[in-house]
């Protein structure tokens, strides 16, 4: 029962966030404060998702640094993933 309730809640919340501004009537504009706050949501939230897996005292830290450099240089997700996974195994072997 809890699982179904959780599932319904997650689905509702996620769709509401995605639809929020797309269902607003064309004439309505958003408060400037809100627009400014939203600008910082992706960098803050995306970083908060990956940082706990990278900021640890083992090979994940240098592998994360390699991945950040690859992402900065090439801006291609699969290059970042491949570089990061190779670096992870390389530093694990080196340790």
């Amino acid at each position, binding site marked *: 029962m*809890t*699982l179904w*309730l*959780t*599932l319904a*809640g*997650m*689905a509702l*919340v*996620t*769709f509401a*966030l*995605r*639809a*929020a*501004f*797309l*269902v*607003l009537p*064309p004439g309505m504009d*958003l408060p400037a404060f809100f*627009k*400014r*706050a*939203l*600008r*910082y*949501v*992706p*960098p*803050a*939230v*995306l*970083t*908060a*998702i*990956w*940082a*706990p*897996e*990278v*900021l640890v005292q083992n090979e*994940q830290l240098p*592998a*994360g640094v390699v*991945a*950040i450099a690859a*992402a*900065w240089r090439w*801006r*291609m*997700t*699969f290059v*970042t*993933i491949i570089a*990061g*996974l190779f670096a*992870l*195994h390389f530093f*694990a072997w080196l340790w």
Partner: protein
Amino acid sequence: MTSGAPVSNSSARNSFAAGARATLPVLLAVIPFGMITGVAMVASGIPPLVAMLMSVVVFAGASMVASAQLLASGAPALLVVLTTLIINLRFMMYSASLRLHFAHAPLSQRLTVAYLIADNVYALMLGRFAEHPEDPGKFQYFLGAGLVVWGVWQVAVLAGVLVGAGVPAAWRLEFAAPLAFIALSIPFLRDRATIGAALAAGIAVALFHDVPLRLNIVLAAFTGIAAGFLIEKRR
């Protein structure tokens, strides 16, 4: 028909195909991340069918991985939903940005766009709309990209659900999930304020590491947003 201009059938098909083709490099990230999400859900005790249902109705990988871990630790439903809200808050920003291109489209098209919003699809759209701001086939392009990513994602999650713990742990494929989010976060670092927001969130999530029930992500998100604001104001 996003801006009122009529779209002929053949140009609509072309836009759809162009959108679908544009996803090819992105799929190399969608597939491993989808599989990891499927594995994480069944590993935390979610029945396979419920995991697939979740993948279809929620369709947001990071929040599903986090929720699976929370459910396994016995967290209350309300907290799982709150964590989902914070992790998926970025979709609201994508929604505000896409509104500029779809505000005059029919409601059915806007709801379709809303459902298909994903980090990598949004990133593709930004590039496309910057190059072709007056493209009459915007919706068809979005649909082509969105449906391909959606379909491949579901198949990848299904593969992860079926394989379960069958992927050798020595491959350490679970690390592909944070790597995918590194790749997604870097393009948002455009100035001092956005870099500050990311740094503050990263430091906060580590500092609040021992806060129970993964509330450190929620705290870190707000710390990051506040830091971005403060840096913006100081200039």
